[in-house]
């Protein structure tokens, strides 16, 4: 009697083991089949390329937005002074209809862009008052200058105006 | 008193039987070997032979055959075994009856008396005596003289054979079972050895039938027994 019982449990155990193994294999197969969705995979840095024309920063939805203006004589980098003059002129009608605006008053042009003397960076000498400029307007000027001047990505920019000198500030965009 | 010739090789058995039979009133001549027995038969007249089958020298069967050749002397076999071979061979050799050793003297005595009744003297005859000859086909049976002739010439029959024939011929056409024949002829009682009947019938047929294998006078009725005729 006992022997029969033992044999039956042995059989049951063996069957259970086989079923478990088979089940695992099966789930493995069905779960991993085909092309599965994935998480986001990051690769290299975003596509970059040269820009042509003058680049200046306007405001879109309260954020700095880069705008490119085709330059007359032909593509090629324009001088920072020209770019600042464009900036002071404000957005074009089409730009305005696209929702762009500017806080840079027109009075700041013409400006001069020179490298800073005492510390590394750029100095922008503007006509007119600079101290009352809003942060946003200052950022516009700073980032535009930085964009226009090659090789000065993160340099602080000092804005000098008729009424004084603003502390040097880098462009908040990286 | 009946003369008994006893042929038995074991001395004590011989002495014992001789003693007992003598007390019963028989005159017993006891010999040791078959040759001596045959010799004695020539010189002394005997009424019955009691013959042991296992004898030194000439065996009992041969002695039985020789005695049968010479006459109708009744022979009772003494056999130590009632196996097939011995009994059947002895009956075929011509013995009238057999007893198995050890045998009580009174049993042997009864057999001797029975066999003597078949021969004559105070022979029992079946049924009321019908004097004269009875013709059955080629056979002529004289019941008074106890002589059977076939085609005129007498046939030599052993006492038991004669008795059997008379028994069957007394009621022609009627079937008699072996048990009935044993009781009537051998006086064995109902449960005697039916081989005695068969052997005797066989010897009888050999003597009176034209074709022993296709018997006319003594017919076998399967499942019942034997019957005389119908012719």
């Amino acid at each position, binding site marked *: 009697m006992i022997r029969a019982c033992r044999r039956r449990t042995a059989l049951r155990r063996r069957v259970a083991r086989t079923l478990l193994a088979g089940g695992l294999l099966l789930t493995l197969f069905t779960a991993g089949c085909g*092309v599965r969705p994935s998480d986001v995979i990051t690769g290299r840095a975003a596509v970059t390329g040269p820009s042509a024309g003058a680049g200046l920063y306007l405001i879109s939805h309260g954020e700095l937005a880069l705008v*490119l203006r085709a330059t007359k004589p032909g593509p090629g980098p324009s001088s920072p002074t020209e770019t600042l003059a464009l900036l002071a002129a404000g957005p074009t009608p089409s730009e305005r209809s696209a929702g762009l605006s500017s806080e840079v008053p027109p009075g700041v042009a013409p400006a001069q862009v020179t490298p800073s003397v005492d510390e590394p960076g750029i100095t922008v000498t503007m006509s007119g008052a600079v101290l009352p400029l809003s942060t946003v307007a200052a950022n516009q000027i700073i980032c535009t200058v930085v964009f226009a001047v090659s090789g000065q990505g993160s340099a602080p920019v000092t804005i000098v105006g008729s009424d004084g000198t603003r502390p040097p500030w880098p462009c908040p965009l990286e | 008193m009946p003369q008994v010739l006893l042929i038995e090789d074991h001395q004590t058995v011989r002495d*014992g039987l001789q003693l007992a039979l003598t007390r019963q009133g028989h005159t017993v001549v006891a010999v040791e070997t078959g040759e001596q027995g045959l010799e004695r038969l020539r010189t002394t007249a005997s009424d019955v032979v009691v013959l042991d089958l296992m004898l030194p020298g000439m065996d009992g069967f041969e002695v039985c055959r020789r005695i049968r050749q010479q006459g109708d002397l009744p022979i009772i076999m003494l056999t130590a075994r009632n196996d097939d071979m011995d009994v059947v061979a002895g009956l075929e050799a011509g013995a009238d009856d057999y007893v198995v050793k050890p045998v009580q003297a009174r049993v042997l005595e009864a057999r001797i008396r029975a066999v003597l009744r078949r021969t004559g003297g105070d022979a029992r005859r079946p049924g009321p005596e019908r004097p004269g000859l009875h013709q059955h086909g080629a056979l002529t049976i004289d019941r008074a003289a106890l002589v059977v002739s076939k085609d005129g010439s007498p046939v030599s029959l052993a006492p038991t054979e004669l008795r059997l024939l008379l028994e069957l011929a007394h009621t022609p056409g009627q079937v008699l079972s072996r048990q009935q024949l044993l009781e009537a002829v051998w006086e064995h009682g*109902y449960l005697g050895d039916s081989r005695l009947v068969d052997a005797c019938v066989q010897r009888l047929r050999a003597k009176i039938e034209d074709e022993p294998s296709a018997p006319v006078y003594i017919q076998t009725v399967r499942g019942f027994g034997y019957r005389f005729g119908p012719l």
Partner: protein
Amino acid sequence: MTPWHWARAMALGLRVRLLLAFALLGVTTTAVVASGSYFQARTVILQQAQDAAVASLTDQLSKVYPVVSLPPSQEELEVLAQRLSDREVDAVVHYGDLWSHGTGAADVLTPELQREVAGGRVAWQRVNRYGTPVLLIGTQLRFERSDGTSVPSGVEVYSVRSLVTEQQSVDRLAELAWVTGGLSLVLAVLLALLAAQGVLRPVRELGRAARKLGEGDLSTRLTVRGVDELADVARTFNDTAGTLERQVGELRRMEADARRFVADVSHELRTPLAAMTAVTDVLDEEADRLPGDAGQAARLVSQETQNLTQLVNDLIEVSRFDSGTARLALDEVDVAAAVNATLRLRRWADRVHTDLPSGVIARLDPRRLDVIVANLVGNAFRHGTEPVSVRLRAEPDWITIEVADQGPGLDPEVLPHVFDRFYKADTARTRSEGSGLGLAIAWENARLHRHGGQSGSLVAGNTPDCGAVFTLRLPRAASETVDAGGVR
């Protein structure tokens, strides 16, 4: 065996176990290998496809530069999207709130992808669009500066590429894996069956030989093939069977010798007994006239000589049964008449109640019937109380004779041994009459009568009113004995 037992035996059998083991091994190995290579290949395929797609996109985008105007108009976005789209790719370009609509694929872009893209890196992700897998790639368009840094232009480009071909390649891989698995399973099964056969055949042979040995064929032997454990078992079996055959043969020889000895002794006893028996009558007659104790002595010798003769005759009967030389002397008898003759011969006729219908003819050995009936009736008188009854019943092929008494009957412990040789139920009782072989001989005599495949029988039992009853059953047409030996 019940179906359940048979099914269980099959399920637990060697073949099934081997099958399961091989199949499991084959399937597991194939599964592991196949799934491993499948996943590997899938990864490679997808990676290559993704890399190619990304490279293609970035390559195309590089042709966009140099960018001359910003912000782009809706139309410019649509044109760019159109340029980047082809048969397999839908491109989506957006700047701020502006989205290109041409391809209508913008709804599939996931927030996490857009988040990554906004971080300034090329990002891609696989998602499911309406059941088919698609690859989403996204990148900003940035402007490079001479110092190596870059600024975002605000334009983001996404491409939605269908991965259906890759899916098909991967599915083909899966199919291959399944096919390989199936083939390996089949192969494993075949191998298992082969192995099982190799083992099972000798085992089955062994089983068959063991069964034949058990049935009595002691000459069974196995052919020893090979040198493995199975061959060892076969050799051991052969040795054991050989020993068994030898020993059983030995025992049988000894038994036969013993029987022959008994037979020979009994025969030898006959001669002196013959002499003694011849004169028992004389002793009986003279006993009264003998002086003193001589008469008693004479009667004693006479009586015991008769008893001894009976015993020796019985022994010889028994030895004939044992050696198989007992023969039936068959004759047609009226059973009732035979039984009556038996009773009459022993002068029991008026002490026995008989119920014997006449006309019942049977072909049997009348002497043996007489022996049986006389023994049964004699026993009834000796051990039971009168009246003793004998009853005959006839069936088409058999006759039944019942001998019953009113006496104390047979003890249940005695009943199975009552036909044993020399068995005395009451050991305290002296052996006053009978040799102790009467019932054994009666039993053998009954069994000697055979018809068809059955033999006659003698059984003992008790009647409802506490008497003993012996039932004799004989065939009505017993066949001639060819070899009647029945060793009990």
